[in-house]
């Protein structure tokens, strides 16, 4: 499986250059990120990792088009991003991103219907296919309030994938799930990637999740968010959690984020 995730050598799909993002709260003007550069290539599993306050969600909102940069440029396929659009489908952390008034099937169908990108029949077929892919065929006509958190997340991912966006934006999608479900979902995401080779920009604050999910990891430092490092995490997944490379990378990231003191956890992983 590790070999299958070889990254093809292509030019950048998403280019972020010198981007500073600011937002207003009722009392303050907050600088979330300062002059950030990175580029995401076709079929990357690009992870943005950082502690809270490093502006990683804000970066994702910038790429999503919800927030114009104060300086710098965000380009997708060479075109500047101006507003939200279905070429950059977003999967949020919260479960309430699904429309409670639509069934699983209708939720998946909705973006295809709204964007009119596919004909009615094709849209319906695609919706059914992608629902099957995430294993929810039995729950096709159920309303979201009757689903578990993990299932809702699967619907959200299915909905985003059905539209075949240029890039999938995921904002800590598994953070609100229990540990067992989270692990299953991570595996499912990886096996979906093995089948479809989509490009995904994934935000997380968990070092372990970043290494398991990502093929590239961008490490951000907080207050304001600045680039600390970009690392290669190709070929590391759940099976390699106990392996020395995994421990070394964990320790390296930890040092990048928190300075010299590395956690007991990383030590244990190295010993194991």
């Amino acid at each position: 499986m590790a070999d299958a995730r070889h990254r093809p050598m292509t030019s950048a799909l998403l280019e972020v250059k010198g981007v500073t993002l600011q937002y207003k709260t009722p009392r303050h003007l907050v600088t979330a990120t300062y002059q950030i550069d990175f580029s995401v290539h076709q079929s990357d599993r690009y992870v943005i990792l950082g502690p809270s306050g490093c502006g990683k969600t804000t970066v994702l909102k910038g790429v999503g088009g919800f927030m114009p940069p104060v300086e710098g440029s965000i380009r997708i396929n060479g075109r500047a991003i101006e507003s939200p659009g279905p070429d950059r489908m977003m999967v949020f952390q919260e479960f309430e991103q699904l429309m409670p008034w639509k069934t699983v099937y209708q939720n998946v169908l909705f973006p295809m219907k709204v964007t009119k990108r596919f004909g009615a029949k094709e849209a319906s077929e695609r919706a059914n296919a992608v629902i099957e892919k995430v294993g929810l065929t039995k729950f096709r006509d159920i309303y979201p309030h009757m689903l578990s958190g993990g299932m809702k997340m699967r619907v959200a991912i299915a909905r985003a994938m059905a539209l075949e966006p240029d890039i999938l934006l995921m904002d800590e999608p598994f953070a609100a799930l229990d540990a067992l479900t989270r692990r299953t979902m991570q595996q499912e995401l990886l096996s979906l990637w093995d089948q479809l080779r989509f490009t995904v920009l994934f935000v997380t604050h968990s070092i372990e999740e970043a290494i398991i999910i990502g093929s590239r990891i961008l490490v951000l430092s907080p207050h304001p968010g600045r680039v600390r490092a970009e690392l290669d995490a190709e070929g590391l997944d759940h099976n390699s959690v106990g392996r020395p490379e995994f421990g070394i990378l964990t320790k390296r990231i930890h040092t990048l984020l928190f300075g010299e003191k590395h956690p007991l956890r990383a030590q244990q992983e190295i010993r194991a």
Partner: protein
Amino acid sequence: MNAEPSQKPGQAPRPEFEVDLIEATAIGDVERPLTITERLVNNEAVQRLTILVTIVVIWELYARWLNNGLLFPSFGETIRTFSKDIANGVLIDRTITSLRTLAIGYALGLVLAAVLTTVAVASTAGTRVLSTLTAMFNPLPAIALLPLALIWFGLGTPSLVFVIIHSVLWAVALNTLIGFRGVPETLRMSGRNVGLKGARYVGLILIPAAFPSILAGLKIGWAFAWRTLVAAELVFGVSSRSGGIGWYIFEARNDLDTATVFSGLLAVIFIGLVVESVIFRAIEARTVNLWGMQR
């Protein structure tokens, strides 16, 4: 993770154990359909009916004990008058007159509320305008505007429609605005993510997402409107040729025909119950209950 059982001093050892599963067939099927009696007891219609029957029994007993038809006619007497007036068409006529006026006023009120709320969600200034207007006019009883309405529009339907609009408009507009404001940010963003804007965004995301609140507004608006209408008819139903249900009650009171007054009140209550527990209940069951937005 220690293999040996931990044993603290002064405590008995706690051995690990594994047992064969006990026989569980005695409890029956894991999922068992409820019996008809159990389902009947849980049924909302049955529960409501029981409450109504109880009230009727208490009414009848009290009226018989009091034995004064002028002050408090019995349920039987009221029902006799009620069915007599239904049969000769008087009550139906009066009710239809009332409901027609109500429908016009309610519809106009909803249209105005929709316009006002759309303006209000479009900008912060609009929100301020709506919340100020609502704060001013919502506490103002519609009946207090009736004298003014009579000066402006004269005796007749336009005055009634005016006060009904007043009683519907603010309740619905306020609830809709609150509902729109309460739509979760994530849901808004996932709507904008697929490129929804303007009217399509309001229609496809905001309105369904705020529907519990909008529906509450519609219900309050309906109750206000019905109440206001009957009250207004009591005040000046006198001069209009085809009076409404308020006029029916007013006439009966002038004749000291208390049973007819009761039968008029019964009609008011009955229509209220039907609208609330049939029409609105059906809308709820098909929307907010189905979607899990409200229990």
